[in-house]
């Protein structure tokens, strides 16, 4: 299963399965036929040899459907026209229904309450922009409105599911040391990426120089906590907005929700709450990916043996 644990301290590619996230991104083949992010070492070597490390958007055989860029080797020509129509249909079908992946049934208000999602910080720590999301203040303790949280969470999970369905790259970010391991294992379990270490300044904005030309950036960034360890907003939120990457973020009562595309007002400090979020995101992403496989099989696209691309 493909995953990347991005750590700037381990820049060497070892034979173990730990790769830096963006190195993995260069090698990750997203062909029509193999939906799995993982490829065998031999296939990776093959793609590396064929493409010569240069995965740039201009060089790919661009198929005109949904903005996907499939890394196809020049010698292999899949049946393009029919496949494109079917792919378009597969991509557009989920957009017709309001809750195609049925994410609303993954959680209930009682689950949120039991996980203490409604508990905010004290009144003194309150961010002025979080006031619309608060239910009230009980003896100086901010209480987050769970009705609003339900709606926001449903939107956020739905968006995540659609991105995962379309084969987008999702990056989990959290600078809370207490939950670093949990976030990394969550990312590993759904085949996506995590970044829970020090965020270097040019990670997104200077990616082409830091990681080599033609790096594919994440299509969605999920923040399990939008603050860094000195209670300032995480740099990733501003950087994602700069690079036109949508973000989903859990915003507590002391956070600034203005730049987060799909904020989810809720507690980000309690282990029970963070475990709940991780579980929900993992379930939605896995559900979306399974659904995609089903749809491809249904429309007869994916062959049982994966073709090298």
């Amino acid at each position: 299963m493909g995953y990347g644990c991005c750590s700037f301290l381990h820049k060497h590619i070892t034979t173990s399965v730990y790769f830096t996230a963006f190195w993995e991104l260069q090698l990750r083949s997203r062909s029509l036929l193999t939906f799995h992010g993982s490829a065998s070492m031999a296939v990776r070597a093959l793609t590396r040899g064929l493409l010569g490390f240069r995965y740039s958007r201009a060089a790919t055989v661009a198929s005109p459907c949904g903005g996907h860029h499939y890394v196809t080797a020049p010698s292999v020509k899949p049946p393009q026209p029919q496949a494109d129509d079917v792919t378009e249909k597969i991509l557009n079908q989920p957009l017709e229904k309001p809750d195609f992946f049925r994410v609303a049934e993954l959680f209930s208000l009682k689950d949120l309450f039991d996980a203490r999602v409604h508990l905010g910080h004290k009144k003194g720590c309150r961010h002025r922009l979080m006031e619309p999301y608060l239910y009230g203040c009980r003896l100086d303790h901010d209480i987050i409105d769970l009705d609003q949280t339900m709606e926001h969470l449903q939107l956020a999970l739905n968006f995540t599911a659609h991105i995962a369905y379309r084969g987008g790259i999702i990056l989990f970010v959290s600078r809370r040391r207490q939950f670093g391991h949990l976030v990394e294992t969550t990312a590993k379990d759904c085949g996506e990426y995590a970044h829970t270490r020090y965020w270097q300044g040019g990670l997104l904005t200077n990616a082409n120089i830091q990681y080599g030309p033609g790096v594919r950036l994440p299509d969605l960034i999920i923040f399990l906590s939008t603050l860094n360890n000195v209670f300032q907003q995480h740099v990733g939120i501003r950087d994602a907005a700069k690079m036109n990457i949508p973000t989903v973020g859990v915003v507590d009562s002391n956070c600034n929700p203005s730049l987060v595309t799909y904020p989810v007002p809720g507690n980000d400090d309690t282990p029970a709450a963070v475990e709940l979020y991780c579980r929900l995101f993992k379930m939605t992403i896995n559900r979306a990916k399974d659904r995609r496989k089903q749809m491809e099989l249904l429309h007869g696209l994916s062959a049982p043996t994966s073709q090298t691309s």
Partner: protein
Amino acid sequence: MAGSRLERFGTVFTRVRDLIRSGVIKPKEKPLWYDVYKTFPPKRAPLHVKPVTSPFAKKQGIVPEIFYSEDKIRTGFYEQYGRGLRALDLSKSNFVSTCQRFVDKYRELKSHGMLDNSSLFEETAKALLKEGIILRRRGAPPNKSESRDPVLDLKLIDMLAEQQSAGTDTTKTTEDKNS
């Protein structure tokens, strides 16, 4: 890939939409999330909000204080009986604390209707006493009828005096023995 890095102007979506409209981003290069955002937009467009610097602009936001009618009973209980004898177990969602039992009993007696407010407090305490919950008044001296271990009442000075007197006796006897 062309992009616009102006995070303070418009949202991610508006910038990409305008880039597509103007032709900078080709339709086949449009990002993965574009159609999904278009179909399911967030409740509030993620526009950057300028932080308020002037102190005069600070208006009090409308975050209501949460108070319940039982809070009056709770304040009365805590004033009289302090923190209560039994600790609160917050890990159980169906836990009923001593204060909550007091409140429930108070409301029950009030609904019966006979008593007035001043005596209602005493009556609730008596009713809880019948059920087996002892409420100790805050600041009242501890109950003398509780059995105290007699060892605790011994004073150190008396013990030392005893030991010293015992010690002098033994030394006298040993001196007699030795000599």
